[in-house]
């Protein structure tokens, strides 16, 4: 069977095109260049303002090298008994100490998709209550949880903790959803940090 000139031409044209394509790709690969563009969350900073005297204290979870590598450093939260604290949470990318990026504002921009949860552990629910700052809501009127109010009730015994979780893509109207329970709301974990808690006399 004979092959038409057109057919022969198209085969060669295809061949030529693919050779050109190879050359183009090659140019991209001449120099290895690593750019780490991933957004990292390394630090969580809790700022406590005692409503009685306006004194301020901060407690930090810090893991500047990200997952793996060195273990994170976690402050113990120390509060005084029978006090009311206004608490705000801040999340940072401090992987580059010269360019610390505040990610809290990004959470607030996407507030309908994010919510912080505060879960007392080891019996800490006897030592304090945490409630959402009622004035801080998203466009649907649901809480966000960047700002909270902590009431200390009694001194802690051993091993009490407070777990702070940031979830995204959750259903904020799910039944049973509360400041310490997100089980039925779906979504995924962005942040999950547990602090040791001490309430002193």
């Amino acid at each position: 069977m004979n092959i038409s000139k057109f057919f022969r031409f198209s085969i060669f044209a295809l061949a030529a095109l693919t050779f050109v394509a190879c050359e183009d790709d090659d140019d991209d690969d001449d120099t290895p260049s690593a750019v780490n563009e991933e957004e990292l969350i390394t630090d969580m900073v809790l700022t406590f303002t005692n409503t009685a005297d306006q004194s301020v204290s901060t407690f930090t979870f810090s893991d500047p090298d990200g997952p793996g590598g060195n273990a994170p450093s976690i402050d113990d939260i120390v509060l005084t008994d029978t006090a009311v604290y206004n608490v705000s949470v801040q999340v940072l990318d401090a992987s580059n100490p010269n360019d610390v990026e505040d990610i809290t504002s990004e959470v607030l921009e996407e507030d309908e998709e994010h919510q912080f949860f505060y879960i007392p552990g080891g019996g800490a629910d006897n030592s304090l209550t945490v409630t959402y700052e009622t004035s801080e809501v998203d466009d649907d009127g649901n809480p966000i949880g960047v700002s909270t109010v902590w009431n200390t009730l009694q001194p802690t015994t051993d091993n009490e903790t407070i777990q702070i979780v940031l979830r995204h893509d959750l259903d904020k109207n799910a039944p049973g959803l509360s400041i310490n329970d997100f089980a039925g709301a779906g979504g995924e974990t962005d942040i999950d940090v547990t602090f040791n808690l001490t309430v002193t006399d």
Partner: protein
Amino acid sequence: MKSFIWIVVSILMILIGFAPVNAQDNCSIEISGRVVDAETGKGLSFASVLLQESGQGAYADSAGFFSIKEICRGDYTLKVSHIGCVPRKMVLQLRQDTTITFSLDHDESILHEFVVEAKEETDVTLTKISIKQAQLETTSGLQLAEQALAIPGMRMQETGNTIAKPVFRGLQGNRLLVLNAGVRQEGQYWGSEHAPEIDPFLAQQVSVIEGVDALRYAPDAIGGLLLVEPADVFGSDSLSGALTGMGATNGRGGALGGELMGRFSEKLPLYFRGQISGRKFGDVRTPDVFLVNTGAEELNYSYALGWKGEEWKAEVFYSNFNQRIGIYRYSHLGNLTDLYEVITGIRSNPDTTDFSYDINRPYQEVGHELFKGRAEWELNEENTIEAIYSRQFNSREEFDIHVGINPSAEELARPQLDYALTTHLGELIWRGKFDSFSRSVGVTGLFRENNFRGRNFMPNYRNTSFGVFGLEQRDLGVWKLKYGARYERYDAAIFNPVASEDDPLNLDFDGFSAALAAKKDLKNGDLTLSAASFWRAPAVNELFTSGLHHGIGAIEQGDSELQKERSYSLSATLRKVFGRTRFLATAYANFIDNYIFLNPRDIELTIRGAFPRFDYEQTDALYWGADLQVDGQLDEGLSYLATASLVWAQNVETGDFFINIPAHQFSAEVKKTWNDLGQIKQPWISLSGNYTMEQYRAPSVFPFESVFQSGVDTELPRSFDFAGAPDAYFLLEARAGMRVGNTSFQIGVENLLNNTYRNYMNRFRYYMDEPGINLTLRIKHNF
């Protein structure tokens, strides 16, 4: 028009020669001759020749020659049969010694035909086991690893339903190399979610080789080599081609492929072959729900041009592979708590009954380009020189669910992980034939460069590798021997983030690989023994990986102090024909010194919560097992095939089990073929059952409860998995087919009983069931 290589139709030719002999007694006639393949003209080993009236018969030897003695004068019906061929009968009036040659057609009804090749060329492979075009057609449109499953001992590791990686005798990844058109495929071998970037439609033949035959290609074929061989560009002098279509109900998709080959003009010895294929599937359905985001799409093409001179031939080959594959949406998890809730069913995944073709995050975009130039000079009868140069680009982009909080449009568009791997490979080989042996010697050089952008999982590197090998083979009469050795030096320069471009971290490894294979012809069979030792340098991921693997919710940590890994393997393969039954059995053991593996080490706290940490460590490992296959004919047109694939693996130092070792598997198939019904040629139906055991040698289950109670201080077992091995399962499959003219049709039903099951060799077994019932239609038209 000359028939194509893959068409298993050819013209039957019977050549009968009568040799005049002296007067004979009534019962001293001898009939002798040869049984050959009608297509290739090669002798058909162990064909059976039977005189039906007297019951006298014989088997041909390995070259197809046979003889039957002491036959009485008379009229006989002679039946010649060979597994894989259409049996022939002929009526003979035997009056004197007779010599006869039979040509047998291939039988399209044959079940999984495996071919153990012994070409009469300088480069004989003793350990090659292949599946050919005719059988690949029955699984066309599937992934390469799925198509290779017909090779005894071949299994696969899956990640969801869209990514399948071959596993041979329990080994995979860096230890099981894949060759595309004779070139070592260079991709990101290290991840089990990185399938070979090869168009399955390209394959004319898929084979596995081990031991000495792999030395020519690589020093590090610890688990063997999977060869994907396209059709020979010089295969057809006239224009010929094929169109293939496949459609499946599960995933509501299909595949199309087209191929064209021939010679440009009768004056010029210039040949060409071009091929294109595409695949598109949507969400796959389990018996209960659609799995969200499990579609895939693919577009590939390749071409080859060849020039055949008097003493030399040259060819160029180019292939281009593009794939976009969805990853099951609910396989990307937040942390250990999320994983626990999914595994224990506290949280059920919101799978839906809505089908979709959409591929959203998480997904992968994979591209691969291969360019190869090859020239072969036949200096004289005895000496041949072959030179090969190839260049490959492999790109892999992974788009995660997690794109950061409040991502910008630019962040949403780019992948979280982006690898570009460029490889150049050159090979120069001399082959010589001598009186009593043949020899080949070659040098190879390889240059690799890997770049990444995005999530910091593996460093950039450049790497060179130089090898020298020598192989010899001798025919000692009863035994055929092949042996050889290879020296390889491997250098790597590691850049950021481990070191820098100006001041790289340099690593070098070198060592010898050596192997021996011996094949003995037995009565109606043969025995192949193989011994080999290969080594490999620790891969860059094993040395320097550091970070969180979102797909499995684990932190992986490399170890820059890893030493090279070395294997010592033994295997024995026996093939034998007993009457109408053919038997293939392989037993193997592979001891791997300094075996590199991911060992669960610790629980690590991150700002996203707790994650298990797996460290790359070294131990001594032993893999052993057996592959068994029996096939034959029960009755006229009724054939069967039964297989068993058994594999064990153990950490020799600790006695622990490794994760992701395939469980034992058994299968049986029966097939009925009828005679031609007018235009309908060789209609057939088949039914097959496949039983996969529970992997009872699986690591213990991760102690979630105690971890949640005592946190990072929990004592972990030495080895663990996040969930126990899934239960055993049984799958039934039915198929039917026929041929009309140059077109063949096949329908099939997979998972006929619509069973719900999970597969231990699927990394997403924690999250999802396997696909339910699937109806497929395949059509192929040759022209």
